[in-house]
């Protein structure tokens, strides 16, 4: 059984690659700056946020004002990845209805492809992160490479979420609108531009709520390795891993339960 799945996946891995490259080509076709937008866009977004929030949040962790820019950029980039990946994955099944009704293709290819595409975009936007780090003179620690762990687990987490959303969106289009609202709320609870321990020291309940947000956990783990040069604690490794695996398992379960009915509702 498992062998069959692997065979199927191997047969369609080129399709996965081609779909990603199609998205990429179409995104930048007819734009003069092209791929440079992948770097410029997050850079400009973060610049705006920096100008707005920096005066308010001055002394985040250690007080070094230069750190705040990096702190903010990391939060913004990772959250954007999650939002982009899940939002694109959500409509991926619907968007390929024409194809799925005509040809047999393993359906999970579409949400998976969108997660991969968002990951490619995210990697490009890391150039912006490097630029900010260099400009602000943030020391580069060897622990940067450990940042791969929260990043990959976040991708797995997003894949699980994307599979659930894409399946639900087939049956209830409302999900698309609900998700937009939900991710906005989630953003405020992800501590992108503030430090919860500092801002809400007097409201432990709020801090607890923020800690329950997996996205916040991924961002925190990534900041620990890239910004503060720390190793990941055992608890962090466990939290990132467990959230990812649970969400993926849930995603696979929902997807498998519903996928045969997709064609009937598109």
């Amino acid at each position, binding site marked *: 059984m498992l062998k069959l799945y692997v065979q199927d996946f191997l047969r369609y891995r080129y399709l996965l690659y*081609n779909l990603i490259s199609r998205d990429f080509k*179409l995104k930048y076709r007819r734009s003069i700056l092209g791929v440079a937008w992948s770097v410029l866009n997050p850079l400009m977004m973060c610049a705006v946020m920096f100008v707005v929030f920096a005066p308010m949040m001055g002394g985040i962790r250690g007080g070094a004002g230069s750190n705040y820019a990096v702190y903010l950029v990391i939060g913004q980039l990772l959250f954007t990845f999650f939002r982009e990946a899940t939002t694109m994955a959500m409509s991926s099944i619907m968007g390929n209805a024409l194809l799925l009704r*005509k040809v047999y293709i393993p359906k999970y290819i579409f949400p998976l492809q969108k997660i991969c595409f968002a990951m490619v975009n995210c990697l490009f936007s890391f150039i912006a992160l490097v630029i900010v780090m260099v400009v602000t003179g943030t020391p580069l620690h060897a622990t940067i490479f450990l940042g791969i762990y929260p990043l990959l687990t976040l991708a797995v987490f997003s894949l699980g979420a994307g599979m659930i959303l894409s399946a639900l969106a087939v049956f209830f289009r409302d999900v698309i609108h609900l998700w937009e609202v939900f991710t906005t709320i989630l953003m405020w609870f992800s501590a992108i531009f503030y430090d919860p321990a500092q801002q809400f020291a007097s409201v432990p309940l709020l801090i607890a709520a923020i800690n329950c947000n997996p996205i916040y956990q991924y961002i925190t783990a990534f900041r620990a390795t890239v910004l503060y040069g720390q190793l990941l604690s055992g608890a962090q490794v466990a939290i990132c891993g467990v959230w990812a695996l649970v969400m993926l398992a849930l995603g696979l379960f929902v997807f498998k339960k519903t996928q045969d009915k997709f064609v009937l509702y598109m």
Partner: protein
Amino acid sequence: MEPIIQVDNVSMRFNLAKEKSESLKEYFLQLVKGTLRFDEFYALKEVSLDVQPGDFYGLIGLNGSGKSTLLKVISGVYKPSSGTCRVRGTIAPLIELGAGFDMDLTARENIYLNGTVLGFSPKYIDAHFEEIVEFSELREFLDVPLKNYSSGMVARLAFAVATITKPDILIADEILAVGDFLFQEKCEKRMQALMSGGTTVILVSHSIEQIERMCNKVAWLEHGRIKMNGPTQEVCEAYKHTTREQ
């Protein structure tokens, strides 16, 4: 000999479009009011069909008789509501030509995209690229976005991509209706060539004379059931007869 396609007692049930609840609100409203019912519609009812290797099987029937649904069940797009469908071998589906095309990409890019939709590797497509271009006669337009193509040109490209492989089973749904007569002849020849190489073909067509010319066996579908199934001559005679009577 073991049949290459074994359709066993397959039924395909659809919920009619007007009944499907597309929003959560509607869904819960209907759930609360107890009106969450689906009008059921059987596109296929207890259909059984065995196809032997090397057969050139024709499917005939009026519009809405379930021909396309049956093809989609065989090619794995639909999972039957009940019954089983077993297929031994690779399938090249020509159900709707160009379903895997992206109109914003050029023909060259689409050849690779559509090729991988059908499960070919890029290497394999590389090796057959010339053949595709040759067959579709679209060399001058290779780098033009597909949205600027005529429907006939799209069909030519799609047919060329889909038939570079030597599948065990070729499934064709009225694809020969597009394109001019010269291209239709070319397609028929290509299908005959695949046949002589051992490929099993299932063809849906409204052109009775085309079915008579190409197929050795024919199944006649009516309202989702198989009305008659057997050698071409017999079934086609009966089909023409009844059609005239009605």
